[in-house]
């Protein structure tokens, strides 16, 4: 193994997720929703990789398919060199000790009938046989890490605010000490002032526990702040990928450019010019031919309608899937 590939914790190759559309009495399959189409990327150890895009672009499906919460239709996911798609259900369940998921909505992802103690000790009971004292010690230790106190162990989710609930979700995911976590929009259900608290907590824990993180979000400011690398998704494909700062400073793909320019600025005296995209995202059950973005792109040419552009390296560690990337 070379030095570089040793550093890679997760390698996603040609991941594909299609959902069948069934119609009629016999539930005949009449088509497929192309949720994720040939997505490849890799995540290094201790790296935060962000997947960013608008709703329906397949970013959450990609996250779920990596952990096989949704079975991928094609492609491979290598974790620590092991092909996850070749594992049985039971083997995969054991693997999840090391790979966890943080859900978007803490209001619905915590069981309302379990108190904090049950919520936090359950993952440990499933994955480890621990003596009671150690179980207690680990739960209390985790509570401290997320800034809560042991006297809150007996409380139920409805007794906490949204921010505290998300802290509990994070604790539940991290209590087995995974090396890899998928966080699916962990702060988008929270208010601005609470969002910052949770983001700080996640960054602290990521450093402290040396986590690799896939951070899924539609919020471009948050992604810029938290991630080292970013993949911009549109209609199931990665359009642009690279070091976060590089992609934000020199966006090469017309979609990334439009996306970045659409973020409202906080300075009323300096109104930036928006690139306002026409129309809507095409139907993923009938994706357009060629480049998925060509129906809304201002730089579309005949080639774009026919041939789907591959991700190509346009600068060191900066990839874009556009026939015109790099042109003036």
């Amino acid at each position, binding site marked *: 193994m070379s030095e570089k590939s040793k550093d890679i914790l997760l390698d996603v190759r040609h991941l594909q997720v299609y959902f069948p559309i069934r119609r009629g009495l016999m539930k005949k399959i009449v088509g497929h929703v192309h949720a994720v189409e040939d997505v490849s990327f890799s995540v290094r150890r201790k790296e935060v990789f962000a997947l960013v895009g*608008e*709703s329906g672009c397949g970013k959450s499906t990609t996250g779920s398919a990596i952990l096989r919460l949704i079975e991928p239709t094609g492609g491979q996911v290598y974790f620590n060199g092991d092909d996850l798609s070749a594992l049985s259900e039971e083997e995969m369940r054991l693997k999840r000790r090391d790979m966890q998921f943080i859900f978007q909505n803490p209001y619905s992802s915590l069981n309302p009938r379990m108190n904090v103690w049950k919520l936090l000790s359950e993952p440990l009971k499933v994955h480890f046989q621990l003596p009671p004292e150690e179980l207690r010690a680990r739960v209390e230790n985790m509570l401290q890490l997320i800034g809560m106190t042991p006297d809150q162990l007996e409380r139920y989710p409805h007794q906490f*605010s949204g*921010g505290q609930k998300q802290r509990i979700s994070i604790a539940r995911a991290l209590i087995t000490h995974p090396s890899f976590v998928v966080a699916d929009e962990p702060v988008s259900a929270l*208010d*601005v*002032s*609470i*969002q*910052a*608290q949770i*983001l*700080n907590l996640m*960054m602290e824990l990521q450093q402290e526990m040396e986590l690799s993180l896939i951070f899924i979000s*539609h919020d*471009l*400011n*948050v992604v*810029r*702040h938290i991630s080292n690398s970013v993949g911009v998704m549109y209609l199931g494909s990665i359009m642009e990928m690279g070091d976060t700062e590089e992609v*934000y400073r020199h966006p090469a793909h017309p979609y990334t450019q*439009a*996306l970045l*320019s*659409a*973020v*409202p*600025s*906080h*300075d*009323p*005296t300096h*109104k930036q010019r*928006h690139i*306002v*995209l026409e*129309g*809507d*995202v095409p139907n993923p059950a009938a994706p357009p031919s060629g480049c998925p973005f060509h129906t809304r792109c201002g730089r579309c040419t005949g080639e774009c309608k026919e041939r789907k552009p591959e991700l190509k390296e346009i600068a060191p560690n900066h990839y874009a899937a556009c026939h015109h990337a790099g042109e003036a």
Partner: protein
Amino acid sequence: MENLLEIKNLKITTLRGKNTVRLLDKVDLNVKKKCSFGVVGESGCGKSITANAILGLLPYPLRVSEGSIRYDSKDGERELLRLNKKEMRQVRGQEISMIFQEPMTSLDPIFTVEMQMFEALSFHHPHMGKAEMRERALEMLRRVNIPRPEQTLSSYAHQLSGGQLQRIMIAIALINDPRLLLADEPTTALDVTIQAQILKLMNDLKEQNDTSIIMITHDLGVIAETCEEVAVFYAGQIVEQASVVELFSHTAHPYTLGLLRAVTSLGGESRKLYTIPGIVPPGGQWSQGCRFADRCEKCMDRCRREMPGLTEAAPGHLCRCFLHSGEVEA
């Protein structure tokens, strides 16, 4: 009347068991004609119930316990809180319209877009014919940039995307040429590229129709882009109010400063984000003094004892903070 809408001393309460709980406290708001007025705050601070109170849409057990809402209607000045149900229905849609946060749930799933647009029209124009209504509906859809308006008219809500639905909501809200549009988080459920389309559309329509807009949002970026005047709500009160440029360039209240720092430190040099400690105190748990005192970096003894008034920090710039009331030497 000089202003289009004047809210004075508005108080809203709810019942929790047998106790009356205050949700909104002595809010004064003036919206000028042809103005876009922003209301910004976090969840539970009272911004949405203020809008609902204007149109008499407060759900039981919420009610207006005090105050007045005067509106300069097409046929003279009216006190909206004194209207009966029938009079209020004449105001809704015709004088004041509202668009809601979730376009996916605000249209009725079992009626076509056409039927819902006709309903809004025929209610205020009972003698309008089918052909004329159809003409008007198509014109509105074209104005909100709906592609293929004829086809859209016969569609149901589930056949359309979120951005299209929000355009249709705007088209329905504007179909009777109201003079005031209440927009309650109109783009929160939408993606950024669609948000940019909708905000541009609302700005264009405001210019064309001389409609005033009250834009309710938690996103300071949306305010900076679209509004002329802003009021910042915190725990059922206005804590700061000024023109947009003034508010963003000479932010006075520690809460507004904190909100701005929390969002603008994103992408900044430091990895650590600025945070406001603690949470917004919910209704019923408000202290006697300044409601932001427990989370404020600059909290003084006095702040816990007395409530600061909304005073002028600079001409036209109101702020509820002892630091800016002119009484304290810093």
